[in-house]
C-alpha cells in the first residue's frame, strides 16, 4: 500500500502480474488435487449419482438422475483446471480473469461433489434448494445494507436488526396468533432500530461503525435477556405458526428451477419483489438517482436542492424495515421459534454479499447464493460422512466469506461518500 504511493504505475503492474501468476498456480493446484488426491482409492468403474428430482416429490414431473463415472469426471475436471491454469500462466485472461476464476472454482466444486458422492447418491436438487433457503436471509441483509450505503450510511447493524426482527416476529406472531401481525411488527422494530442508527449517524454524526456495533450488542443483549427470562418460562410466546410453503402452479413444476425458486414461502416471493423494486427504484427512478447522488457526492446533491439528510434518514429507516422483515424469516419462515443469537452472523455475511454484489440488488442476490451454496454443501457433506471433521465443515461458509471479501473486494467500488457524515456548510 505504502509502496504504491511512491511509484504507482510500476508497482500496480508488477502486482497485477504477480496476481495473475498466483491465480495460474492456483488453477494448477486445483487440477493436481482433482487428479491425484481425489481420484485415489476410487475404483475405475465407480459412478457418482446426483439426484435431480426432489425426494418425496408429488409432482408428475420426472427427471432422471445424473450419473457420471467418477474417475473420468475427476480427470476431466483436472484437465480443464490445468488447461485454464496453463493459459493463465502463459498469456492470462486480461479483464475476464474474474469470470474465468469463477468458472474454474465451479468446475472444481463439481469435481469435489463427484468425489463426495462416489458410489453413493447425492441429492443435487436438495443442495440447490437449500442454497436458496440459506441465501434468503443473507439477501435480505444485503438489501438492507445497500439501501443504507447507497445513501452514504454504513449499516453494520444488520445483524442486530435481523436478530430483533426474528425475536419480534416470533413473540408478536405467537401472542396475536397471527403471522402477518408478527411480520409487520418485525418491520416496525427494524424501522425503530434503523431510526436509532440514523439519528446516531446523521444527527449526531457518530462514527457509523461504532453506532452499528452498539446496536448489534444491544439487540443481542435484549433479545437474549428476554428470551432467558421470559420465553423460557412462557413458551406459548415462542410458538408461532410458520408461513406455509406456497408452490406456484406450473412454475414450480419446471425441472431444477421450480423446486429452487418457485416452491418457497411468502418470504422468498417477497424477496423477488423487493429485488425488482429496489433495482428499478435505484436505477430507473428520480428517487434512485437522488439516493445515488447523496451517496456519491452529497455536497453536489445539496447544491441542486436535494435534501441530503432527509434522503439518508429515509433510506436507513427503509433498510431497517427490510432487515426487520428479513429477520422474521428465521422464526416465522424457517424454524418456528426464537433461539438466542440464532442469526449466527448472517447479517455480516449479508454485508459481504452486498460488497461482492457491487452494491446492486441482483448482484447481492447472486452473491448470497454463493454463500448459501457453501452453507448447503457443508451440511450435505457431513451427512454423506465425508472424511472431514464436522467442526471444519461448519466453518466453511465463514471461510468462503473471508476468501471472497478479501480476494475480490478490491475490484469493486463503494459509494464515494459511504460512511461519511454530511455537514452543511
Amino acid at each position, binding site marked *: 500500500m505504502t509502496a504504491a504511493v511512491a511509484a504507482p504505475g510500476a508497482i500496480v503492474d508488477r502486482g497485477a502480474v504477480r496476481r495473475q501468476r498466483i491465480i495460474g498456480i492456483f488453477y494448477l493446484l486445483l487440477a493436481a488435487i482433482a487428479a491425484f488426491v481425489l481420484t485415489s482409492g476410487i475404483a475405475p468403474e465407480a459412478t457418482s449419482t446426483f*439426484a435431480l428430482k*426432489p*425426494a*418425496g416429490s*408429488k409432482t408428475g414431473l420426472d427427471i432422471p438422475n445424473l450419473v457420471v463415472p467418477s474417475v473420468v469426471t475427476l480427470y476431466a475436471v483436472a484437465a480443464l483446471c490445468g488447461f485454464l491454469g496453463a493459459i493463465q500462466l502463459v498469456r492470462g485472461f486480461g479483464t475476464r480473469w474474474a469470470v474465468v476464476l469463477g468458472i474454474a472454482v465451479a468446475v472444481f466444486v463439481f469435481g469435489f461433489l463427484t468425489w463426495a458422492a462416489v458410489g453413493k*447418491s*447425492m*441429492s443435487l*436438487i*436438495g*443442495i440447490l*434448494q*437449500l442454497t436458496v*433457503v*440459506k441465501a434468503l436471509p443473507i439477501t435480505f441483509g444485503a438489501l438492507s445494507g445497500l439501501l443504507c450505503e447507497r445513501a452514504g450510511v454504513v449499516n453494520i447493524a444488520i445483524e442486530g436488526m435481523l436478530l430483533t426482527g426474528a425475536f419480534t416476529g416470533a413473540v408478536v406472531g405467537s401472542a396475536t396468533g397471527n403471522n402477518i401481525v408478527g411480520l409487520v411488527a418485525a418491520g416496525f422494530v427494524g424501522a425503530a432500530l434503523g431510526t436509532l442508527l440514523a439519528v446516531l449517524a446523521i444527527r449526531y454524526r457518530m462514527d457509523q461503525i461504532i453506532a452499528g456495533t452498539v446496536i448489534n450488542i444491544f439487540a443481542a443483549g435484549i433479545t437474549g435477556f428476554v428470551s*432467558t*427470562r421470559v420465553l*423460557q*418460562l412462557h413458551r406459548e410466546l415462542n*410458538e408461532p405458526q*410458520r408461513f406455509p*410453503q406456497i408452490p406456484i402452479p406450473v412454475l414450480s413444476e419446471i425441472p431444477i428451477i421450480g423446486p429452487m425458486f418457485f416452491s418457497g*414461502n411468502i418470504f422468498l416471493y417477497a424477496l423477488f419483489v423487493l429485488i425488482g423494486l429496489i433495482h428499478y427504484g435505484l436505477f430507473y427512478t428520480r428517487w434512485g438517482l437522488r439516493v445515488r447522488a447523496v451517496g456519491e457526492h452529497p455536497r453536489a446533491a445539496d447544491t441542486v436542492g436535494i435534501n441530503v439528510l432527509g434522503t439518508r434518514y429515509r433510506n436507513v429507516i427503509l433498510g431497517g424495515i427490510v432487515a426487520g422483515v428479513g429477520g422474521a424469516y*428465521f422464526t416465522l419462515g*424457517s*424454524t*418456528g*421459534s426464537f*433461539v*438466542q*443469537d*440464532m442469526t*449466527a452472523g448472517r447479517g455480516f455475511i449479508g454485508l459481504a454479499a452486498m460488497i461482492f454484489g457491487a452494491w446492486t440488488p441482483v448482484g447481492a442476490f447472486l452473491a448470497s447464493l454463493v454463500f448459501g451454496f457453501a*452453507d*448447503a454443501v457443508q*451440511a*450435505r457433506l*457431513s*451427512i*454423506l*460422512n465425508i*472424511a472431514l*471433521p*464436522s*467442526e471444519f465443515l*461448519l466453518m466453511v461458509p465463514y471461510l468462503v466469506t473471508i476468501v471472497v471479501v478479501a480476494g475480490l473486494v478490491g475490484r469493486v467500488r463503494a459509494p464515494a461518500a459511504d460512511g461519511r457524515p454530511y455537514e452543511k456548510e
Partner: protein
Amino acid sequence: MRTSRALAALVSAAFIFAACATAASPTPEPTVAPTAPPTVAPTAAPTASPVDWQACMVSDTGGIDDHAFNENAWKGLQDAQAKLGIEIKFLESRDESDFEKNINQFLSEGCEMIVTVGFLLGDATKVGAEANPDVRFAIVDFAYDPAIPNVEGLVYATNEAAMLAGYASAAWSKTHVLGTFGGINIGGPVTDFMDGLVAGAHYYDKTTGSKTTVLGWDPVTKTGSFTGDFASIDNGKTLSLGFLDENADVILGVGGQIGQGAFAAIEERGVTGVGLGVDVDWYVSVPQYKSLILTSILKKIDISVTAAVEHAFKGEPALPVYVSTLANGGVDLGPFHDYDSQISAETKAALEDLKAKIISGEVKVSDYFAAP
C-alpha cells in the same frame, strides 16, 4: 481464618433460625413453580410423617417446569418425599452464575442432600461437595473421575433405549433410510443416542433381512453430522432437510431443542416423515409437533433421583456412578401415541424380545455398530 469460618457458620445459623421462624412453608415462596405447592403439601401429609431431613434441588437453567430435565428431576424428589416423608425444596437457576450461589444457599440452609440437575453444574457441584464432605450430593448426567466420596453421579445408558427406538424406526421407515445428528461431538450424553439408533437399525436388518441405511453417524469411526451447538434449531433444520433430500423419513436430533428442526424441515418439504423425541416424551413436551413424533427415547431422571435420595437417606455410601438402564427402568422407549396403529404387533413383540435380551445381556448395543 478459623474465626471467620466460625463467624460464617454463626451467621448462616442465624439465617436458618430466621428462616424457620418466618417461613411457614419449607419451600421458598418466590421460586416455587405454579405446580409445586399443591403437590408438596398433600403428598407429604398422608404418607410418612415428616422427617427432619431435607433433599434440595438446584435446577439447570430452563426453569422447573421445562417439561424436561428439571421437571423430571423434581418429580423424582416428590416421589422420594412421598416414599420417605422427607422435606424437599428447590431453587431455579436463571443462568450459569446462579449455580454456585444456589448450592451455597442450600448449604447454608442445612440441606442433608443437594441434587444438581445437568452436567453444566458439574464444576459448581464439585466445589460445593469438596468443601462440604458431610453433605450428600447427587448430580444428574454427570460422574466424576476420580469419584468424589459424597457425590453420586447419575448417568444413563441411553444407547439401550435408543436401540429399541432404532429398531422401531427401521420397522416404520418406508424408505429404509434413517437420519441422525447431534449438537456437539462430545461423546456419551449425545452420541450414545446415535449409537443406539444405528445399532437398533442393524439389529432389525439382521433379524428381518432388510437393508436400512442410517445417515449422519458412524458409531465405528465416531464421525457424523453435528449442528455445532445445543440451541440452533435452524442448523438442525438444515441437516434434517439434507436427510429428507437423501430419502430419510425418520430423523433423530440429539441435543436440547435442535431436534425440533426435524419437524420444521418435514413441514417445509411437505414429505412423509417423523422425528424421534429425546430425554422426555416430546408428544407431551412439544405438543405443536405431536403429529410428527413417532416415539421418544426416555431418560427417567425421576427414578434415578429417587434412588439416589433413598441411598443417602438410608445412610448408604454414595455410588460413584449410578447407571440407569433398561433393567432398572431408568431409560426406556416411550409410547408411540398417534403412530401406535402403524407399528405392527409383530414389531411390538420383537421390541419386547429385544428389550429382554438387552436386559439379560444377550444383546450388547456395541455388537451392532457395524452393519451386518
